[in-house]
């Protein structure tokens, strides 16, 4: 059984049809890239999966459960995690508190009020900061980080609750080549326990880390399959790769 299955997703904003019958299937431990020209519907598809938008038509099932109408919080509790396209770390809080905030989301309100999980989560927070090479700056506010480091922090926040599915919307946007390379290295190990859907414009980055690719054009799925298969598809080269 697939971990995530989106079927016939349609999303209409006024007169604009952003998605027009898109299907997507993600297996356990699969790294799946979403590519396509600007305005092709990649981010809208991602938002419909994450719960930021409710599809006009179609269904989304996650772990065998229909979550089409579920709130983002319910999806997060089910094991889905999202990194937004625009970096949205909490700038006034320290890096430590940003990660702790992500980790403690499933704690009951009573336990939050009594700070019962603070000690338990401390090691996890530090381990996550260490993994993302941010541990030396744990006590600094997130606003003090460079753009690339803020992207890492947000990926670390999304990964902290150990989701089953991680959705990354343009995680390397604004990063240097070196930072992109490191981001790839940081993501590879999560494959052991997590699936990944990634929207990205950097095709080299996508090729390096993804098992499968889906190409969108004008709200529809143009091609889906292994990276090699999609790359060699003439239709894709015509519509997307040449433009890129």
């Amino acid at each position, binding site marked *: 059984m697939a971990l995530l299955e989106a079927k016939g997703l349609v999303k209409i904003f006024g007169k604009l049809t952003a998605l027009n019958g898109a299907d997507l299937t993600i297996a356990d431990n699969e790294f799946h890239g979403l590519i396509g020209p600007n305005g092709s519907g990649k981010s809208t598809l991602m938002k419909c999966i994450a719960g930021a938008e409710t599809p006009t038509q179609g269904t989304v099932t996650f772990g065998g459960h229909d979550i089409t109408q579920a709130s*983002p919080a319910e999806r997060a509790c089910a094991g889905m995690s999202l990194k937004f396209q625009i970096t949205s770390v909490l700038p006034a*809080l320290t890096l430590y508190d940003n990660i702790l905030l992500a980790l403690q*989301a499933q704690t009951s*309100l009573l336990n939050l009020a009594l700070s019962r999980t603070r*000690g338990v989560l401390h090691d996890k927070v530090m381990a996550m900061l260490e993994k993302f090479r941010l541990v030396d700056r744990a006590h600094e506010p997130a606003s003090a980080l460079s753009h690339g480091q803020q992207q890492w922090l947000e990926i670390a926040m999304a990964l902290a609750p150990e989701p089953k599915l991680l959705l990354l919307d343009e995680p390397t946007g604004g990063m240097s080549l070196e930072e992109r390379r490191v981001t790839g290295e940081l993501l590879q190990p999560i494959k052991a326990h997590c699936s990944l859907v990634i929207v990205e414009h950097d095709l080299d980055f996508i090729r390096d880390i993804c098992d499968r690719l889906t190409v969108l054009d004008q709200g529809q799925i143009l091609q889906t399959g292994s990276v090699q298969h999609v790359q060699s598809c003439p239709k894709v080269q015509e519509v997307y790769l040449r433009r890129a």
Partner: protein
Amino acid sequence: MLEIAALVIGLLLPLVLQDYLTVYATRVLILCLFALSFDLVWGYAGIMSFGQAVFFGSAGYGVALLARDLGITSILLVLPAGLLIGFAFALLLGGFLLLGRHPASVIFVALGTLTGSYACDRLARGWYYLGGQNGIPSIPPMTIGSYELTEGPAYYYMAIGFLIVVYLLCRFLMRSQFGLALAGLRENEQRIAFFGYKVQHLKAIIFSLSGAIAGLAGSLYAFHEGFVWPNMLGVVISTQVVLYVLFGGSGTLIGAVIGTVVIEAVSFWLSNSYQDIWPIILGVLLLLVILFRPAGLVSLLLTERERVGNFGRSPGKR
């Protein structure tokens, strides 16, 4: 340090003040409690409540009616009643304004609460049972057993006792992991919803808690003044509490206290010294602070890091 200094001054004040000034200072302490209630919702959770007086005034009216109609003045009954009334009204208004499927905008909540405050003010003015324009005068004093608590040092120390207890509870809560969740709510509500936080629940809880504190303040105020009147529910006092907190520094408990004390002390001094133009001077002063010190007076004394605070363990500890 700042908090300890404020506490020492607060405890010693009645020893050096004349009686009429102690009465004034008691009123200021109760208003500090009221300011804390607003600071929780706006400063910590980012919910703009322009109708905080609804909870303050409704509790004031509630305990006044208990005293007038049922002769209930025992502190063990009237203060919990005030607290509950504030809590219930906040839960009702908060439920209506905050608990929709989609997050309510700041403007929607601000205007909704402001409208609620205005409507309650008009309702009280027009309702004969509540005394109409004149409110409810001659509320009998609050009692502890057979002892009557009237205005003066005893009432002052009771008020400061409640202020300390509420302050410490809020401090504990705001520095807890719950406080971190509220900081997340204030900074980026959508982000924390995607972590799995039930943001509507968080909002309802903090809004109701704030209503309960405002209710406690309202009931203390009613017995201290000896009467309640429609202004206690209205827009003027709802706005006044916003100014206290903005002036002192929202998002810090001590800021709310400092803002209330400074505004009330300066108002008192100006109204004696410049009887005709004191509101204008005060207005200009408030404007200057808000323009040049948007983080409030407390930003003169605390760094931004100290104001925001840390919620986890010190990162160095392992």
